[in-house]
């Protein structure tokens, strides 16, 4: 049973106290959580009914400056690997094969690429185990479900993040020889794989 306030919440039409109360309810109610996501899509679509306007030219640098101020420098360096991995993963294998970033000697940028079995997907793993999965044309998810990533080493499958789109950054490192797998799980994810396995990629 979906709570009647889900729509008001999606429209930001609750006052502060009601919003907090509903957020607490959401955490415990998967039905409402799924309903809010659907209703949010409709609410956000209302933004597109308004005439888009070009803001003053000073807003873009303001937006970017704020970003620069709140990010620690170390993370920015770390971003290099993922930036390179994302571009390679999101474009095509030709780029990766032609450039072979892991042979450039740049350990920040170096990563290995593995093709997945079971679906058209590519896994990129850095030398320190950071990993990105780029999948193409995964089956659309049923309502109330999500894709969950797993890092399997030995007999143990550990959760490594949830995603719904086509690209995901794993939340835990992938040790050499581990298998990365994706299964369909209820929204919110599971602590061990329970749903059908969508794909797996074995690393070396």
């Amino acid at each position, binding site marked *: 049973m979906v709570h009647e306030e889900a*729509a008001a919440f999606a429209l930001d039409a609750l006052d502060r106290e009601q919003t907090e109360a509903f957020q607490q309810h959401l955490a415990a109610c998967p039905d409402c959580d799924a309903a809010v996501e659907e209703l949010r899509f409709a609410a956000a679509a209302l*933004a597109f009914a308004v005439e888009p306007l070009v803001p003053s030219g000073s807003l873009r640098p303001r937006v970017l400056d704020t970003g620069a101020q709140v990010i620690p420098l170390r993370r920015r360096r770390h971003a290099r690997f993922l*930036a390179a991995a994302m571009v390679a993963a*999101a474009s095509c294998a030709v780029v990766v094969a032609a450039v072979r970033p892991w042979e450039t000697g740049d350990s920040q940028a170096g990563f290995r690429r593995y093709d997945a079995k079971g679906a058209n997907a590519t896994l990129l793993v850095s030398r320190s185990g950071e990993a990105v999965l780029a999948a193409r044309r995964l089956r659309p998810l049923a309502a109330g479900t999500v894709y969950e990533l797993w890092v399997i080493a030995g007999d143990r499958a550990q959760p490594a993040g949830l995603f719904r789109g086509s690209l995901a950054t794993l939340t835990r490192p992938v040790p050499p020889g581990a298998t990365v797998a994706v299964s369909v799980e209820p929204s919110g994810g599971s602590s061990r794989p329970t749903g059908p396995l969508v794909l797996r990629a074995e690393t070396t």
Partner: protein
Amino acid sequence: MPNVTDFIRGETQSQAGSRRELGHLSDEAVLALVSRGDEAALGELYDRYGRVAYGLALRIVRDRSLAEDAVQEAFLAVWRSAGSFLAEHGKPSTWVLTLVHRRAVDLVRREERRRADPIDELSQPTGEATDEEAWLRAQRQVVQEALRKLPPDQREAIELAYYGGFTQSELAERLGQPLGTIKSRMFAGLRRLRELLADAGLELDAP
């Protein structure tokens, strides 16, 4: 085709560079880069949704400076919490515009600036539109048509809440209806809107 070696060297700082390198990525991919602290990706996301965000914020707060504040604060929230969003939810465009809406509503409630004008009707195109403008215009038409198909009382409740920034309790008072009626109208209307948009095949990602 993107040049990966340039990317590794980090030569993506300029606006033109960000366009060239990131333009082909999906919203999810751009957001994943944002979550890793990539400023060029934040710029790309701003270039995709900044105008819709600003148009929305200005519609709600009715003040250029406040609207810019709402957009800036929303993108700061995107920058800070892109990682946790990616692990949880659906469409990046929905999330970004949800954040913009929330900031704008917060600001307008504080400033007591709310208005309840009807939304602007679709203006006629002047001259040749770029692909992006044409796409936005088409999206706008689809959403406006869907809105027009809603029963008037549902449409009214949704528009006053979303564009006017009124809470459900304020709406009940303003419209002289019980709170339960307002809740039902918003719920039925928003669910119907979702169906109408799905029927129209609406995809809210920038081209």
